Each structure stands twice: as C-alpha cells, then as structure tokens.
C-alpha cells in the first residue's frame, strides 16, 4: 500500500514537473510550423520561475476570493491526477476515491473560482472573459455528460482504470464505432477546454478577443505563476485522460516495481507528444471561430457523442 501511495505521489510529481515542458513544446512546435523561430521549449519554466520572484499586486476592489483562487486552480489538476492513470495501468491508492465525473467536477470547481476571481477584479475585460468562458463551458457541459454517459454505458463504469481495461481487452472493442466517435468528441472537448484554436487563441494579446486568457490578466507575481502552471497542468491532465484512458494504454507500467514505473514516465511523455503534434496541426490549419460560431463547433461535438451512444444502444 505504501508503494501505491508512493506511485501516486510520483504521478503528481511527474505532472507538476513535466506539464510546463509539454506546454513549451506545444508552443515551440506551433511557431515552428508557422515558419517562426518560436520560444525555447523551456520558456514556460522560465516564465514561472521569473513570476515567482516578483511581488504580487492586488486590485483595490478585490476580496479574498481573488487571493485564494490561484491555490484552488493550482490544486484542482493535482487532485484529478490522483484519480486517473498517468503512469500505471493498474489502480493506485486514490483511484477509487472518484470517477471521471468526479474529476470533471474538480476541474469545474477550479473554473468556477477562476470566473469569480475575474469578476472580483472589477476589470471589465475580466468579467467579459469570464462570461465568455462560462458560455464555452456550458456548451461543453452536455458533451462532457454524453461522453461520460457513453463511457459508463460501454464499459460499465466511470472509473478511468476500468474504462481503460475494457478498451484494451480486445482489438474489436477498440474498433467499436462508439469508441472512435467518443475519441473524436473528446478531442474537440479538449480543444474547447484548453482554449486552443479554433475556439480561442491562446497566444492572442488583444483583450477584446480573449476568452480564457483574460480571466488571469490581473494576476501578478506568484499568483500569475500558479495560474500559468495550473493551465499547463490542466492541459497535461486532459491529454493524459485522452491518451491513457480513451485512446491507448501503450507505455503505461503494468508491473509493480519502481523501475518499471520510472521508465513509464518518458514513454507516456512520448505518447502525449504525439497528441500534441495533432493539436499543433489542428491549431495551425484552422482559424479562430467567431464567438457565436463556437456553439456550432460544440454542437458538432455533442452530436458526435450522441451518435456514439446511439450506435452502442442500437448495437451497431
């Protein structure tokens, strides 16, 4: 049991340390694909390091909500990490504390506090960005629900480890149409939730067009560092759910020994890089959607997830 707790802690450390690197590689590759030189892949680490050494400034109108939000936003992906398979294919100590819906709730809690804090600053851009994020997430909510519903229906459970076991069992389960449709729908969700093109432009500097970014505009110093770090961890966590639970458990450690779990770290990271490549291609080949077209994007995701249930329900 001590060993499993140890692996769980290792999982959290992996996510915390490698998440900025993943984000850095994503940014670098995106710029490279657009024929620019791009920042160093370690840029996110430098940014976080720099911000931790700066003083914090709080808006005069802000209350305690603004102050505690970075900690909640930072803690949420760590809690989710405890619930999902990041390195091992067998359940760890905290695996049965919550299912995928629980993980979704924890991430939603962070989103809720980030929204409150943005309104709390009384900066008009903050409130605008917050309301837009809410719009995107309430449109994404039904898709989340349908994805979880389908997963529960197909695999008989929403615990990520069990879902993953079901889809590894045999090749025919993997090639089920409902599985493929769920993969597509969840990928669209990741795009919406991490604020990538075509839903949002993460590298934009124009406040009026921002969706996700404008919520953390007012943060400075360590608050900003935590928000930035949390953003990259959220990306890491969502991509690992996508990779490890829904697509392929390749590279996960199946043995109990410490060495095997340690080797899983680079293997899983390589797998995540493959998804990052896909994300980079998507981000570079589409343009950002107009705000009211986002509902179309997410309704496509919704329809795909419903089609997944339908094909399963009617035993296609």
């Amino acid at each position, binding site marked *: 049991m001590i060993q499993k707790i140890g692996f769980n802690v290792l999982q959290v450390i992996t996510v915390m340390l490698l998440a900025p690197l993943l984000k850095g590689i994503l940014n670098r590759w995106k710029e490279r694909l657009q024929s620019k030189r791009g920042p160093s892949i370690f840029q996110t680490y430098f940014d976080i390091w720099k911000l931790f050494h700066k003083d914090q400034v709080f808006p005069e109108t802000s209350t305690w909500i603004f102050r505690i939000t970075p900690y909640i936003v930072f803690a949420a992906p760590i809690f989710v990490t405890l619930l999902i398979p990041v390195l091992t294919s067998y359940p760890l100590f905290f695996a049965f504390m919550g299912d995928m819906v629980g993980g979704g709730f924890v991430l939603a809690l962070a989103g809720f506090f980030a929204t409150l804090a943005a309104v709390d600053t009384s900066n008009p851009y903050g409130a605008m960005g917050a309301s837009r994020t809410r719009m995107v997430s309430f449109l994404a909510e039904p898709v989340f629900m349908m994805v979880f519903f389908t997963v529960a229906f197909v695999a008989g459970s929403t615990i990520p480890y069990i879902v993953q076991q079901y889809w590894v069992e045999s090749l025919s389960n993997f090639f089920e*149409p409902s599985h*493929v449709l769920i993969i597509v729908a969840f990928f669209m969700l990741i795009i919406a939730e991490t604020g990538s093109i075509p839903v949002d432009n993460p590298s934009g500097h124009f406040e009026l067009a921002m969706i996700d970014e404008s919520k953390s505009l007012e943060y400075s110093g360590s608050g900003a560092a935590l928000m930035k770090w949390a953003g990259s961890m959220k990306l890491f966590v969502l991509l690992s759910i996508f990779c490890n639970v829904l697509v392929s458990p390749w590279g996960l450690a199946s043995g109990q020994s410490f060495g095997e779990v340690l080797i899983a770290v680079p293997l899983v990271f390589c797998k995540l890089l493959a998804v990052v490549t896909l994300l980079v291609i998507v981000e570079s080949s589409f343009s950002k959607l107009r705000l009211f077209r986002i509902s179309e994007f997410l309704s496509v995701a*919704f329809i795909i997830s419903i*089609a997944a249930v*339908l*094909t399963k329900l009617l035993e*296609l």
Partner: protein
Amino acid sequence: MLDPVLARHLNPLVGGLFLLVTFGLIATRQVLAAVRIFILQSLLLSFSAALLGLVNNSFHLYAVAVITVATKVLLIPLFLRGRLGADMHARREVTLSVGIPSSLLAALALTGFAYVIMEPLVQSADTDIIVNASVGTAVLLIGAYAIVVRREALPQLMALLAMENGAFFAGISIAPDLPMIAELAAAFDVVIIVVVLGLLTKKIDERVGHTTVGDLDELKEG
C-alpha cells in the same frame, strides 16, 4: 492481407465514420468543404464495399469499391472543378434556411428514425447488414434534409450525391451479389446526374448571375 474476421470488426467502424462524415456535411458552410466531405464519404463507401467483399467473398463488391473510387472520388470532383471552378472555390458562406445547430439536431433525429424504421427489417440479419442498412438509410434521410435546407445549387447537388452514397451503402450489404451490370449502370447514372445538374447550374449562373436557387421562387412577367 486482412482476414474476414477482422474485416467484420472493421466494417462497423467504417459505418460509424460514414455517419460522422455525413454530419460534417450538415455542419459545413463552404462549398469546397462539402465537396471534400463528399470525396471522403465516397472513400469510406468504397472501404466498406471492399470489407464486405472480403466478408462475403464477393468479387462484385470489390468492383463496386473500384467503380466508386473511379467515379465519385476522381471523376465527379474533377468535372465539378472544371465546370464550376469559380463557384466551387467561392469563399463565401452558403445560405441556409435553418441554423447549423438545429440542423444537426434534426440530423440526429433522422438517424434515430432511420434506426427505428430499419429495426424490424434487419432484426435477424448479420451485423454487417444491420450496420450498413441502418447507417445507409440514415445518410439517405440526412441527405434529403440537406437538399431541403441548403438554398444554393451546388451544395444541393452535393447533398443529392450524399443521398446516393447512403443508398449505395445500404445496398452493398443487402445485395452482395448484385450483377456487375447494375453496378456499372448505377455508377454511370451518378456521373450523368452530375453532368446534367452541373450544366444546369452553370446555365442558371449565366442567366441569373448567382446560384442561390432558394431565391428563385417567383415568376417574372415579361
């Protein structure tokens, strides 16, 4: 070489993707995207035909796959590009009489409806027939819906072709030993339909100056 057992597993996947691509047809606003989706859909149709050919050990279905690639993936898009190039590459958005989110919901309802009406027919059949017949019927209905909703000639033509693909998708599973002559006739029918409608569209464009046929709803005297 694939073995028939794996082909039987892969066919539902192709069916699911076929349905997914058809939803894409409902969700696009540009003509060129609709043409690309049609090409993708035809490719999936030929995949399914080849897989079913493997399952049923039927030479005719391989022929269907080859004919589909030749006519629908190569010939028709090339013809459309040659004849209606300017119209096809137009960057403007197609006028729709129903918004995309509601259209998608309607398409979903049609899919459910297709399953319900096909269920008594395919109850005791093989999985291939269940998959192909239900998905094919769904695509047929969605294509018909798209024709009604789109208000321009070229997107309507693409929707008609999608409908035809749906009918073929259902057909290849029900009649795996369809005589070759019927397949050839069907395949060339499609090309002729495209030629006729393409020329008609071209003429409308020359006369009226645009192809928004949805606006052509009243007669002018004199």
